[in-house]
């Protein structure tokens, strides 16, 4: 893949982040550098606590880096912005809003006229297979359905980059596989840049063009693995010999980091 000729959509430039903890300063990210191309699907794996969410929150603009910066289309980001949509692991649906009202939220904020908001919302609800649930409240939905709503809500706001923080982490294996397939389909259609955090190596390989492996505390990029398996990828891809090779390679790297955390 000739990523070099592609436009850099997102540039993470020497991002360093420390938290004030009870035992003094704690370095969460120690100089992270990464260029993400337009339309690229990136997965980030690494042991728990290595700073994946911190990095995502910095890209989202919900956290400020202690030093370093993130650039979107060459422009330094400051705070949140609708060009960067986020899907959280805990769904974060507004429980007092119905499915359609949740999906409409971003459009309401953009002051899109009401008749259009509803039309766009319906389109994305349909895209995630939730037709007929427009007027349900989140409490009436299963975990998988809730996350579908969250994805539809993020897409409806029409971001250029989608940031997903272990979005399928809380779901059962079957639902997770289903949502992976759906997300891949949407990505192939909409071609949005995706930054996807997971702790599931299979998931990372199935989805990503590049898998970023992060090292244990303090978080740094340890290795970047190109996933040279062509799309469209399906669940059958998991028995592809190349898949198994890549899985062994990535798993080994992640496992070393996991051991480092245990020490």
């Amino acid at each position, binding site marked *: 893949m000739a990523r070099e000729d592609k436009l850099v959509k997102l540039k993470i430039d020497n991002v360093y982040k420390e938290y004030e903890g009870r035992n003094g300063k704690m370095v969460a990210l120690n100089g992270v550098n990464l260029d993400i191309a337009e339309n690229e699907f990136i997965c980030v794996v690494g042991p728990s606590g290595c700073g994946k969410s911190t990095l995502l929150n910095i890209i*989202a*603009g*919900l956290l400020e880096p202690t030093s370093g910066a993130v650039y979107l289309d060459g422009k330094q980001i400051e705070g*949140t*912005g*609708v060009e*960067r*949509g*986020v899907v*959280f692991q*805990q769904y*974060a*649906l*507004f*429980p*007092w*809003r119905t499915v359609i009202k949740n999906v409409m*939220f*971003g459009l309401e*904020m*953009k002051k899109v006229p009401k008749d259009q908001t509803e039309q766009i919302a319906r389109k994305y609800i349909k895209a995630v297979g939730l037709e007929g649930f427009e007027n349900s*409240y*989140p*409490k009436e939905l299963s975990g998988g359905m809730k996350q579908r709503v969250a994805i539809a*809500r*993020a897409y409806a*706001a029409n971001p250029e980059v989608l940031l997903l923080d272990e979005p399928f982490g809380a779901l059962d294996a079957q639902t997770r596989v289903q949502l992976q397939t759906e997300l891949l389909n949407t990505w192939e259609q909409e071609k949005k840049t995706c930054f996807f955090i997971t702790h599931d190596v299979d998931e990372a390989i199935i989805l990503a063009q590049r898998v970023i492996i992060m090292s244990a505390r303090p978080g740094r990029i340890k290795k970047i693995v190109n996933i040279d398996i062509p799309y469209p990828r399906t669940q059958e891809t998991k028995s592809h010999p190349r898949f198994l090779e890549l899985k062994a390679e990535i798993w080994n790297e992640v496992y070393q980091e996991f051991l480092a955390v245990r020490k």
Partner: protein
Amino acid sequence: MNEKGTKKKKIVISDKVWLLISLLAALLVWYLLSIGEATGRSFPFADKVVPSVKTMIDRGAFWKDIASSMTCVGIGFGLGFVTALPVAFLMAWYLPIQKIIEPWINFIRNIPALAYAPLLVITFGVGQKPAVILIWICTFMTMSITIYQGIKNIDVTLIKAARVLGANDFDIFLKIICPATVPFIITAIRLGLGAALTTLLAAESTGAQAGIGMRIRSLSNSFESAPMLMYIILLGIIGLVLLKIVDMIERKLTGWQEKIN
């Protein structure tokens, strides 16, 4: 579908049956108390208590007492609510305000209202005014703390989610904080009404001319236990009715809420 329907219905019926059983058991206990030699003096049975409603109406006290008490509770609680709401938001928004005010509230809240009621009389004189102020103070403290804690417990992920979807501070206040606070406001109203009713006796000890609390006191001086008990039960019924109304409002406003059964 059908099965589910009938199942639900069954539960409703059995709940009502339980209520009936509970009521009958209460009547039985009441009856047993009424035939006891010593307890009978304080707890005359329903056949004496119910007619005392008419006695009190004939004396021209019954409706006046209810009106007077409800006026105190209504105004006191209303003032408590409209002051607690902004104070709760201010405490949640500005740390210094919270740091200064919360300890006051927690300190005063532990003191029985009856203890400082006389102080209010010194400043505000006797009658309804100090009664209203006392109820105001008590309901304000309960409600401001409850609403404040509710605002503090709002899931920050929801605020983050709104933020990344383009919401500004004003949107977040109006479209996230406000709806997320509604369940806590309703809890606060419930606790506030409870506080208002329990404070009523202390409030009407401030030289009120009428009122349920004042009447219970004066009837006790003349050892009229039947109307006294009637007034006490009346207080309970008023509390129950008010809570039912709050329940109805709650169902309307917070049907979206996930419930733990």
